[in-house]
């Protein structure tokens, strides 16, 4: 039933795009625009196809759409970084909004774990967005490039622990009652989880929030290692809570970009539709894809985009 729903949604969006492409307004403006190089719809259409591929790769590579979007689009498209970051945040936000309700209902995303973390991360994302918008573009571009290369290193080196050993919950997490129970679907095992090192974990979310807001990246790449490896939440709870967390962190930063004027609908809608359709296809391809190969491919693309961002920032 759910699969049929998604297929219908894809068909409707496909028909919608077809209607746009054959509309008289589209043809008229295209003819006018053709005189000055590319027609107006050229870059939005390329953006749609690229984000569609990105959506597939993001699912198969186990990364968020936002982290691929900002370095690739800012590196290879004619859009200014201000608009790319604004759009990137909305892309990451929509991915989180789409996944959030299901994860919360299944009790995989923990609201109890997310609320204190989100309070810190969203406040710092606002600060990050304000810093990012106040700094010169080349400085942000250099910092973005360095961050993306850092993310590649993190993806290559970070281990994951399905159910980390947490001998004892710390005092803060005990006071906040950050704990839960979930059933591992593959084995049927009931897992009782709690977290430790909460103060340090919360402190790291200051940094994560700032980076998310500053670069317009979703921060799943940083959320999951902190929740899983440092605080000791089970991997599934960490991944689900991280995804849900983005809906809060990115909301605060998105408003800053939105109010500043960094949102152009002609960039936002093709990107959102592209990423979402790509994600639907990606989920289907998961069964047959080779995850190791895809992961290496994603890391390589990210590294290339990171170097490109660095060189653009340095003026090479």
């Amino acid at each position, binding site marked *: 039933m759910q699969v049929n729903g998604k297929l219908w949604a894809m068909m409707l969006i496909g028909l919608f795009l077809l209607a746009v492409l054959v509309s*008289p307004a589209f043809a*008229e403006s295209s003819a006018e625009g053709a005189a000055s190089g590319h027609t107006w719809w050229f870059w939005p259409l390329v953006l749609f196809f690229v984000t569609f591929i990105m959506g597939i790769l993001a699912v198969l590579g186990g990364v968020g759409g936002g982290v691929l979007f900002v370095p690739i689009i800012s590196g290879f498209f004619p859009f200014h970084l201000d608009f790319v970051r604004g759009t990137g945040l909305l892309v990451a936000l929509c991915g989180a909004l789409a996944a959030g309700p299901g994860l919360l209902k299944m009790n995989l995303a923990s609201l109890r774990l997310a609320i204190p973390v989100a309070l810190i991360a969203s406040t710092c994302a606002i600060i990050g967005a304000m810093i990012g918008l106040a700094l010169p573009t080349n400085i942000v571009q250099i910092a973005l490039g360095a961050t993306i290369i850092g993310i590649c290193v993190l993806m290559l080196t970070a281990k994951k622990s399905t159910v980390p050993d947490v001998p004892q919950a710390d005092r803060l997490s005990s006071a906040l009652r950050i704990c839960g129970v979930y059933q591992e679907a593959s084995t049927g095992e009931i897992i009782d989880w709690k977290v430790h090192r909460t103060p340090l974990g919360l402190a790291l979310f200051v940094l994560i929030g700032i980076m998310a807001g500053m670069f317009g990246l979703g921060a799943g790449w940083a959320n999951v290692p902190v929740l899983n490896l440092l605080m000791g939440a089970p991997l599934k709870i960490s991944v689900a809570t991280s995804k849900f967390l983005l809906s809060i962190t990115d909301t605060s930063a998105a408003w800053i970009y939105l109010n500043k004027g960094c949102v152009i609908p002609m960039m936002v*809608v093709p990107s959102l539709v592209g990423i979402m359709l790509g994600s639907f296809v990606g989920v289907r391809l998961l069964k047959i894809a080779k995850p190791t190969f895809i992961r290496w491919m994603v890391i390589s693309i990210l590294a290339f985009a990171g170097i490109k961002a660095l060189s653009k920032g340095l003026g090479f």
Partner: protein
Amino acid sequence: MEEKTQDLLKATPEQLLYAKILEWGMYSGLLILLITFGLYTLGILDPYIPLDKISRYWSYNVHEYLEHAGIKNGWAWLGMLKYGDFINFIGIAILAGVTMLCYAAIVPTLLRSKDTVYAIMAVLEVIILGAAASGLLAVGGH
């Protein structure tokens, strides 16, 4: 014991309420965004920036873009909803605003279950997101 475990496996009432509002907001925001984008690109509503001129603006930084296009930042888009491009901001604002609604909605549930600390954190989150959305947090240009 078995019954207690089953209860623990279920999401809490505030979590379910949050999920329900989030789902509603996400679907309505996306639907409105797709409809308004259709009105924009199909030429049903005239845009403020003509479609064939849009590519001139997206390579500027935001400061130059606002200046060249004669657009005010903040909530000024509310006064420009008659234009095909600006009407898209309704859906975007719903998507960016639904989280605030979710937080505000769970406060009474948290207070009923005497979870005062979490209720305070939820209220603080609404204030923070509200401050970000208000446009009062001004930022400098490039």
